């Protein structure tokens, strides 16, 4: 016979205002098997927890029901208290009479009645609870970081410095990410490359970091502590071990007019190229789409068209016949740090949600550029060696108009979120422009200025007050080329007057979007993502760098628009989480996992077909002489995540899910 204790919490006034907690305790006290039923002001307080502990000892309770807030809030608290009194923590459950009752109903009678019902259902469930013990699973004590931008580099370095091996995978030929493209950074205006490059080199040279550049994650199997990751090393066409980065191949490449991705299309590169001079590793890659050798081959020509790079290479490192290779790495934890891409304002959008901005002439009016292109113009290592020259004729623009919120905060274009960094980098751009073109006038069209952050508001003020940027609150409705200038038609919402002005150049602060292919990657990792493709954190407040899949963490702009300090902070946070995780040889997991009743399993393996984790295995049942009698399904407790889909699928009901067994659910319904 069960000996259940019921503890009804007032939550101060939160529950007691609407629910007659004394009546709940009294009614539940009448239930068969309930031998102790009380109410108290704050069950989660120390005295409240002590009540639970004392009652367990005094009444030899076999189960505890706390009617209080959501189990998501305090289940851990009360299970800990239960364990503290020597009772298995899984014999404690919560009835939610706050979020699901007192807070959403006005009628005291109805709320009290509902609270009694809810508690009764949990009492009946708890009568069928079984003591459970945590599951121990071994841990592979190394980590994978996906993405070699500043977030990925930081995470990798922190984990490696903490003593664990890291596998860092970057899809581009070099690590560094977007930060390497930036000229200066806000709010200090220190040189982006100057602070980044040493970290890139450090990551490259770190004895505990294994770097895969020009590589992508092909597939991920396994589970927390035990991931098996397959990485596709794309064919670089250059032998990394032999290349010494001398650059002779690039010098002889006849195809030098390819728009450079690194320079956001403003500069040119060769078909065999290192993305930028400080690239890590400093090893070129052949762009097979653009290389004459490969293009001829793709067309079916048997003639060797070029091959100059291979001839020029003193080390014989150019290998045209290199193939993609797959390597597997065992890791215990994964960081997703894939960063962002910029919204492309043209009408042809990759997502049906996005509509594009035909009216801003990007791509048709040559002197309309985006923020990243401006970064490259302003960068000392950029195509203009740091001079602000407009793309159409190379003249120095004397009037530059900056448009904020291009895409961002515009639900009708499909992006309702704020991209967070644009206000700051636009302010930075106006300053960089003023510092380089002293007679120039920067004008900014903005919706709101969002400069929350240490030194951020001061920074935007400096742009306006010291560097004379003109900020106009309002939107631009149309812009077009008129001879040498760009005509701009807009509206100043503060003065309430239309604005018509000329500019030599227009810079669009386009929205931040997650990288292409995020949905596919998220599916490989079984992590959830929002409709834009940003990875969802496990909890927006309390678990900001974890994902819903144990062992997979998230850092930087792939989670939502982030600036550099945010990304770095997240990266260090993931590193800290992972170092904690990897500090153990074994992991403890909640024992809410499925198990098979082997005596009734009919081995149809429907469970195997529905299991998203591959947790169902085939198990041989043998007699004492070792002869195979039959095969049954068996659940790998380390892999099972406890969703219970197999239970509802099993025709013979031969599966159970600890914590949510059929008997428990049935009992709760019987108490309905």
């Amino acid at each position, binding site marked *: 016979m069960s000996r259940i204790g019921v503890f009804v919490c007032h939550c101060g006034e939160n529950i007691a205002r609407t629910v007659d907690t004394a009546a709940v305790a009294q009614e539940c006290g009448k239930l068969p098997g309930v031998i102790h039923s009380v109410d108290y002001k704050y069950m989660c307080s120390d005295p409240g927890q002590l009540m639970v502990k004392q009652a367990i000892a005094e009444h030899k309770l076999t189960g505890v029901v706390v009617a209080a807030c*959501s*189990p*998501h*809030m305090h289940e851990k608290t009360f299970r800990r208290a239960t364990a503290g009194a020597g009772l298995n923590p899984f014999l404690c459950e919560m009835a*939610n009479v*706050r*979020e*699901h*009752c007192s*807070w*959403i*109903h*006005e*009628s005291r*009678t*109805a*709320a009290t*009645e*509902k609270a009694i*019902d*809810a508690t009764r*259902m949990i009492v009946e469930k708890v009568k069928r609870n079984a003591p459970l013990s945590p599951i121990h699973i071994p841990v592979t004590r190394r980590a994978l970081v996906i993405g070699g931008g500043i977030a990925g580099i930081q995470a990798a370095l922190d984990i490696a410095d903490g003593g664990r091996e890291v596998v860092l995978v970057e899809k581009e030929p070099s690590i560094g990410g977007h930060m390497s493209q930036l000229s200066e950074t806000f709010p200090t205006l220190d040189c982006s490359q100057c602070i980044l490059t040493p970290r890139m080199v450090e990551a490259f040279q770190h004895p505990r970091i294994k770097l895969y550049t020009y590589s992508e994650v092909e597939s991920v199997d396994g589970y927390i502590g035990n991931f098996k990751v397959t990485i596709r090393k794309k064919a670089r066409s250059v032998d990394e071990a032999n290349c010494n980065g001398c650059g002779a191949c690039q010098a002889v490449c006849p195809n030098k007019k390819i728009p450079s991705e690194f320079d956001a299309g403003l500069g040119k590169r060769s078909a065999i190229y290192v993305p930028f001079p400080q690239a890590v590793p400093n090893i070129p890659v052949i762009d097979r789409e653009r290389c004459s050798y490969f293009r001829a081959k793709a067309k079916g020509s048997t003639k060797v068209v070029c091959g100059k790079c291979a001839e020029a290479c003193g080390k014989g490192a150019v290998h045209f016949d290199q193939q993609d290779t797959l390597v597997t790495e065992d890791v215990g934890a994964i960081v997703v740090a894939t960063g962002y891409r910029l919204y492309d304002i043209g009408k042809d959008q990759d997502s049906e949600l996005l509509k594009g901005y035909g009216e801003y002439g990007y791509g048709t009016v040559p002197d309309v550029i985006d923020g990243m292109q401006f970064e490259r113009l302003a960068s000392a290592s950029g195509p203009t060696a740091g001079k602000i020259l407009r793309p159409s004729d190379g003249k120095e623009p004397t009037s530059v108009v900056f448009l904020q919120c291009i895409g961002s905060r515009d639900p009708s274009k499909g992006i309702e979120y704020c991209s967070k960094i644009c206000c700051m980098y636009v302010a930075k751009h106006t300053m960089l422009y003023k510092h380089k073109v002293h007679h120039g006038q920067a004008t900014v069209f903005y919706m709101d200025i969002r400069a929350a952050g240490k030194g951020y508001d001061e920074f935007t003020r400096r742009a306006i007050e010291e560097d004379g940027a003109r900020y106009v609150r309002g939107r631009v409705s149309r812009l077009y080329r008129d001879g040498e200038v760009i005509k701009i038609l807009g509206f100043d919402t503060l003065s309430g007057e239309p604005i018509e002005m000329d500019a030599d150049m227009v810079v669009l602060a386009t929205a931040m979007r997650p990288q292409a292919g995020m949905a596919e990657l998220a*599916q490989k990792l*079984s992590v*959830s*993502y929002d409709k834009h493709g940003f990875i969802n954190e496990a909890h927006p407040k309390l678990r900001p760098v974890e994902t*819903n899949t144990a062992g997979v963490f998230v850092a930087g702009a792939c989670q939502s628009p982030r600036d550099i300090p945010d990304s770095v902070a997240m990266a260090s946070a993931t590193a800290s989480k992972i170092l904690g995780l990897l500090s153990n040889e074994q992991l403890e997991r909640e024992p*809410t996992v499925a198990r098979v009743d082997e005596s009734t399993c009919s081995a149809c393996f429907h469970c195997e077909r*529905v299991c*998203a*984790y591959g947790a169902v295995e085939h198990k041989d049942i043998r007699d004492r002489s070792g002869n195979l009698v039959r095969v049954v399904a068996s659940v790998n407790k380390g892999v099972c*995540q*406890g*969703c*219970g*889909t197999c*239970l*509802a*699928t099993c025709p013979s009901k031969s599966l159970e*899910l600890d914590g*949510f067994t*059929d008997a428990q*659910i*049935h009992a*709760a*319904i*019987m108490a*309905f």
Partner: protein
Amino acid sequence: MSTATAIENKSPASAGRFEPRIAAFVCNWCTYTGADLAGTSRVQMMPNVRMVRLPCTGRIDTAFIIKAFERGADGVIVSGCHPGDCHYSEGNYHARRRFAMFKELMNFMGIDERRVTFSWVSASEGRKWGDVVDETIERVRALGPFDDYKTLLEETP
């Protein structure tokens, strides 16, 4: 309708009105959390729902729904994560097939399918949860008590 009348109407004590009993089977990660959010946001709703928390809609066996009717439920809500949001990646897709078949079966058996609400309510849709609850209650209230099912036992020859 003024707020005061709205609240008055939500009280089961309202004289003479049929108060349906609704069982809800919800997943832990989306709808239960969404209902928590409804609570923290003080989204007011009618009190006729009794909830059973499951890890995932994938866990929800259609036997639960039948058992709820046997126990006197006038209506049932089944709710979980939106497609793509499942905490367990795929549980809700399997559940969706199961529910689709069950819904058609119920209809075929002559169980008014309006007695069962299937919904996707995410952890951020506290307001939607309130709407699903209130709409279901109103709909089932209009249908009246599920006497057809409740009297099956007595009607056995």
